[in-house]
């Protein structure tokens, strides 16, 4: 190869997306994120069905995001307090997770695989390194991911006034259920 060709090839490789790269990407819209705060006086439970996520079967990367304001509560006043006082959604509109699936999974095979997600979780503007157990279920190239994990309010500087400690739990249980389709 002449030098010129090599240089041209070099730039082509840099600029043109590799055909294999867009393959192996899966996306989820309308992922369900639910949380439960269990405290002596009451259980508070809210759900959002507006989570979005992209995962790469090639690089094992996974990214997840949900709008704080999309969480629906049974008591509308609670939803207002959640946004205004606790999550400050005007300042921090999203919660997100960005990381990797630790295990190598053959996404072309059907089956259920327990996995670990490691990466950075951002809630209320505070980033935390997390290791989260999840389950990947593959059926005919449809991927479903479920996960249950805890979030401690303290870890993300979410202040709960002492007067409300019997109403709001310090550790909140989060459940995620996302269906992915191939892009």
């Amino acid at each position, binding site marked *: 190869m002449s030098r010129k060709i*090599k240089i041209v*090839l*070099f730039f082509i*490789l*840099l600029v043109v*997306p*590799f055909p*294999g*790269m*867009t393959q192996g*990407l899966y*996306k989820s*819209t309308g992922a369900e994120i*639910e949380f439960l705060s269990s405290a002596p006086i009451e*259980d508070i*439970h809210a*759900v959002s069905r*507006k*989570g*979005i996520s*992209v995962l*790469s079967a*090639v*690089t094992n*990367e996974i*990214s997840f*995001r*949900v*709008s704080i*304001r*999309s969480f*629906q509560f*049974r*008591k*509308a*006043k609670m939803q*207002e*307090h959640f*946004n*205004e*006082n606790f999550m400050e959604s*005007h300042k921090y*509109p*999203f919660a997100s997770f960005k990381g990797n699936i630790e295990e190598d999974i053959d996404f072309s095979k059907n089956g259920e695989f327990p996995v670990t997600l490691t990466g950075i979780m951002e809630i209320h503007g505070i980033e935390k390194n997390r290791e989260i157990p999840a389950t990947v279920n593959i059926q005919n190239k449809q991927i479903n991911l479920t996960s249950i994990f805890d979030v401690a309010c303290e870890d993300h500087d979410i202040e709960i*006034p002492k*007067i*409300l400690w019997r109403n709001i739990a310090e550790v909140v249980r989060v459940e995620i259920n996302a269906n992915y389709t191939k*892009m």
Partner: protein
Amino acid sequence: MKILLTFCLILSFSGLSGQDIDSIMQSMDSGTGNEPVFATFKSPKLVLLQTNETQKKQELIFWVGHRFGDISGGSRTLFGLDYATDIHLGFDYGISDDLSVGIGRSRFNETYNIQGKYRLIQQLEKEMLVSVTLFGQSSWITRKESFDNEFPKESDKISHFLQVILARKFSPSLSLMLNPGYLIRPSLQVEDVNDKASFFVLGMGGRFKFTKRLSLIVDYTLANGLDRPGELSPQSYNPLGIGLEIETGGHVFSLNFQNARYITENNFIPHTQSSWEDGGVRFGFSISRNFYLGPKDNQGKKGY
């Protein structure tokens, strides 16, 4: 060269695919486009005026207001605290998130009132600048006549007040509102021959939030000298209220000062006869408490 090329290939591959996920995530909508703006104010009332806040569906609010005597009473009346010029108890209920109905009772004239509030337009983050809320209230005086034939007909005891509330939350800490209104009184409730029975008023108010739970609240009603004559006997003044509002998550407390003696619009708009300038100011407070009356959460049942 081959090594360099392979290296570039790997670099471009991994680098671009990483960017890919980020840019795909960026391009996906996760619902923060044009959301409604909520919690413009914390309570259905600011100091004196109604806010644009309606009750949420199936929520009941209990609102208690108290106005003491003139501060100019000095130590003899403990700066007015010996007196109660008005006390109001009221309940508002949310039929839907946009429509509330309420009943109340004031000590002044032993007035009962019914009221309705309807949110016509809600402020949106991008496309709608203001919330527009309609408020209507009817008041019924139930005290004994102070002289024979003061109110020959029952309808002579009933007045109405209609208001359009234009409110905008400029930022999480600043909300302002403009409240044009119209008071309708039977002519027998008019004290001065020069006075009008029914007239337009213009209210305005605002909230400045210092912290998550503490706000400064102010409202003013241009009642005299707009549509109603400015010179009346007894002299009437424009009601001005200033207060601190404290939210505890369930209760909202307001500690305030105002020249108006009475609490509901039908009472304080025509009957504010003391002014800030000559010590006609009084201390007042209000407490509101929310109750949720809807169905209880079912354990294990997902969704709503």
